[in-house]
């Protein structure tokens, strides 16, 4: 051994004269690094209690607990409680958090004599690090699930304007799976869906490619699944947890995808046969109006083995979905397919039968155990401005019905629509298509009271109108239908709207009279709302029923003050298909309960 190897180790002695390198904890505070994964923070206001953090936590460290917040649309009111006896600070919960509410501070010391203290609800149980600015936040662009909605193929505006072909093509299987893959199965959307459809479950069926299971789930809660898959107002998507940090799941399109994937001939088999009611238990129910509300109630009751007859005044069943929604949004054969399923459950539909004249309410009452009124809103309201009684001033609902029943329609070269809701857009786009067919060009002006920021129609509708060459002018108040010397409609005179409601929130538009315009058109179409036609009730019944501001008074289940009569759908509630379906379910449930003697004697 060379002598250097004996001497060399003594070089360690130099450390005698050096300062120690250790940190004098706890005298010297040593904060964690800026992205340190320390104790959890949760913005309890922002968190929606979706429980996705719980799902991903492989340590089972998270429980979703009731912290006393009331559930509301898109928020379960639950909040994650974390057990630090289990947590490993992997931050997968932070990475997956649907709202970005969950994060971690850089605090890492916490002592407590009570072991249970380490099970806490961040953001609810106040902690010293709650407002720490440093700590792990999900890095930008880092995501464990897809944020962007999968696009769906659509007809180009040029291709669609000349026809009534359906605009959206629906997802193909690959795209549907991609979109379904984004859903985190939290179930927040279910409460918001009026019919409480089994959304996460049927989306899972799409992921699994098990369309029969998906279809069975759909028709469990919604006999108008095909219809809703196309035209539902999809309130569920506003509640969707995925919408906070990305696009909400295309719930409606996925529903439609399921219905598209299953051949119509298999529907009835998958939905299943109706129950057989026990001998002597089968009741008979009459439904007035073959729209979604009435038919849903009929479907539910028939599936329980009861005999249901539906009376419809029009040529075809379907109600508003048929007569109000244009074919390019909802092809008739789609509606027919849904109605076929309902018929297959044993529901009898009598069309072109007017209750009130062909058969009276008294007769229905006498012949049935219960009667459901689901007559919808089919009378168009009028603006009652000067000139509005002219023959070329038409109501949107009437025109739409004419188009549906293929009655001849005089297509004007140019026209003006009054209204800013979906019906206004529907009639504008329908007439635009007819103009295109007849003259090869579109000349439609839509005048709406609301300004663009407060439009009532769906944004998609407005965008598509624009694409199809329809001119939408916002904030215009109709004043007069201008009629020329020969008595022909020349256009619509409007003033600019300053405000629609007064200080008390009542409808009282005020105008800037200096800003006047004439919108030229050979026809003016009013699309400002509808009313129910209740003449058919007959005087006696009208007297007997309780009313509320012109509508029949009903309880939460749709039962009227007459114990044998239920009234549901648009004629008592707001207009949209899925609410009508939900109404139908409620009424059916209430009627079944009444039959079983749980409710009042029927």
């Amino acid at each position: 051994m060379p002598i250097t190897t004996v001497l060399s180790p003594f070089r360690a002695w130099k450390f005698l004269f050096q300062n120690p390198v250790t940190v004098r904890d706890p005298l010297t505070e040593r904060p964690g690094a800026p992205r340190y994964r320390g104790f959890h923070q949760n913005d309890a206001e922002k968190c929606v209690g979706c429980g996705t953090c719980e799902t991903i936590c492989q340590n089972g460290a998270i429980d979703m607990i009731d912290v006393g917040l009331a559930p509301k649309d898109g928020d379960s009111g639950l909040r994650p409680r974390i057990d630090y006896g289990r947590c490993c600070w992997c931050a997968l919960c932070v990475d997956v958090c649907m709202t970005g509410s969950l994060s971690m501070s850089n605090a890492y010391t916490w002592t407590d004599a009570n072991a249970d203290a380490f099970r806490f609800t961040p953001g609810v149980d106040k902690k010293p690090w709650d407002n720490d600015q440093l700590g792990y936040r999900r890095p930008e662009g880092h995501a464990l699930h897809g944020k962007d909605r999968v696009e769906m193929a659509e007809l180009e505006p040029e291709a669609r304007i000349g026809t009534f072909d359906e605009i959206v093509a629906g997802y193909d299987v690959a795209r549907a799976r991609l979109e379904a893959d984004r859903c985190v199965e939290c179930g927040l959307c279910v409460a918001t869906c009026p019919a409480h459809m089994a959304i996460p479950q049927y989306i899972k069926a799409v992921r699994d490619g098990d369309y029969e299971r998906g279809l069975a789930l759909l028709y469990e809660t919604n006999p108008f699944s095909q219809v809703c898959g196309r035209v539902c107002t999809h309130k569920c998507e506003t509640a969707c947890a995925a919408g906070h940090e990305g696009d909400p799941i295309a719930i409606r399109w996925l529903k439609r995808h399921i219905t598209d994937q299953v051949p119509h001939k298999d529907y009835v088999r998958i939905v299943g046969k109706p129950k057989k009611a026990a001998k002597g238990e089968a009741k008979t129910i009459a439904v007035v109006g073959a729209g979604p509300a009435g038919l849903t109630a009929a479907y539910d009751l028939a599936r329980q083995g009861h005999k249901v007859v539906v009376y419809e005044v029009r040529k075809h069943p379907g109600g508003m979905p048929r007569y109000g929604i244009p074919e390019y949004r909802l092809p008739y054969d789609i509606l027919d397919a849904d109605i076929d399923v309902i018929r297959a459950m044993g529901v009898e539909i009598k069309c072109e039968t007017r209750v009130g004249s062909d058969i009276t309410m008294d007769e229905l009452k006498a012949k049935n155990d219960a009667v459901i009124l689901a007559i919808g809103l089919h009378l168009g309201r009028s603006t009652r401005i000067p000139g509005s009684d002219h023959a070329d001033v038409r109501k949107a609902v009437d025109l739409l019905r004419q188009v549906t029943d293929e009655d001849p329609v005089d297509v004007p070269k140019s026209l003006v629509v009054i209204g800013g809701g979906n019906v206004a857009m529907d009639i504008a786009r329908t007439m635009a298509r007819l103009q295109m067919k007849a003259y090869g060009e579109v000349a439609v002006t839509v005048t709406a009271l609301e300004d663009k920021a407060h439009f009532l129609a769906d944004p998609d509708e407005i965008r598509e109108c624009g694409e199809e060459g329809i001119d939408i002018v916002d904030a215009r108040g109709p004043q007069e239908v201008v009629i020329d010397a020969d008595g022909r409609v020349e256009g619509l005179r409007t003033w600019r709207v300053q405000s629609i409601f007064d200080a008390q929130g009542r409808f009282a538009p005020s105008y800037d009279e200096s800003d006047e315009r004439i919108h030229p058109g050979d026809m003016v179409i009013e699309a400002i709302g509808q009313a129910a036609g209740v003449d058919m009730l007959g005087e006696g019944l009208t007297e007997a029923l309780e009313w509320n501001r012109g509508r029949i008074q009903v309880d939460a289940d749709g039962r009227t003050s007459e114990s044998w009569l239920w009234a549901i759908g648009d004629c008592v509630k707001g207009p949209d298909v899925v609410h009508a379906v939900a109404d139908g379910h409620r009424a059916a449930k209430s009627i079944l309960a009444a039959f079983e003697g749980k409710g009042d004697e029927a």
Partner: protein
Amino acid sequence: MVQDLSDRSQYPARNRDGTLDVDLTSGKYLKLWQGPNHPGITGNMSVELTVCGDEVVEGKTHVGYLHRGFEKLMERRTFIQCFPIVCRICVPEPDFNEYCYAAAVEELAGVEIPEQAKWIRTLILEMGRFNSLMMYLGGQSGSLGLGVIGQWTTYVRDLMLDRFEELTGARIYHMFILPGGVRDTLPEGFDARMEETLREAERTMKDVWNVMFQNAVFRKRTIGVGYINPALFDDYGVTGPTARGGGVAKDVRRDQPYLAYPDLEFEVNVARDSDIYSRADVRRRDALQSIDLIRQILAKMPRTGPVMAKMPNMLHWKIPRGETYIRGECSRGEYGFYVVTDGSGYPRRVNVRGPSYTHAMALLERLIVNCNIADVAALLVSLHTYPPEIER
């Protein structure tokens, strides 16, 4: 001057079934347990020694003190849920688990990770290697009574842990390399702070050289001790510095390059003598090499672009049926994950191949025969054993 210590011709006779004829009541032999609590043990394991005088006639490795059944646990976790647990298979160098697991599922799922992520992964693996080697140097010198080296290497390791903390958000279990890439980019000012750490590390490595490798006691007790005949390497699955200390230039980074290694310049460190000193010296040079590689990585790596590939929703992630093996060169040798998938959202089977599995079991049991009791700890440490990767 080396001799094959595995020659066991003179000590106890064998029974017919091949076991040793050891009569403990004869007074000639003694059973001695080294571990599971013992300063010369590298973790939760023990060696059951049968000694005759101060010479070992038989040694048996016992593990299982830290068995957590990771491979089984993973079978009931989704692919993303496996990510946080794999690092725990190896405390001092957890990142290889993260890398091998991520790379295996990426390959099976057909995911290509972004370029920047590859470089950051390489950086992390080299940082981890450096730290693991610091623990080794402390342990190896400690096994021979040189306690102070461990204090110095722990100090630089701690500085490196600071860098880990600011990069990954954690000091020990980084949970940063996840399927699809890495969590984040380098924080601002990282390069400068890393350079400071590397300088400090180089200073410490000089001290280690002077006080450990240039130390007569250390040299006396390690040169020619713990010899492994290179002819045995394949028989016993010997890899990494243990093999390189015996002149075999096995290094996965060079033999089957992965991540950014094809773009890095380095020589494979080897030594000739296959004894404890040679292995220690290879590892010392490996640590210096890691310092150099970290500098190269920081100089060459891209700083823009994504660090995560576009992934499907991790909550429902399913991977088609298949199997693969991913390996890397960790500080101790070949580390690998064999992963089998069956089309579901869970791995069918994961098998972790850690170098200690062969080194500290069959190989150690062979080497320990005829060893002096006082050298057992040094021998065991010189195989750079981390027991959790044996029992997993």
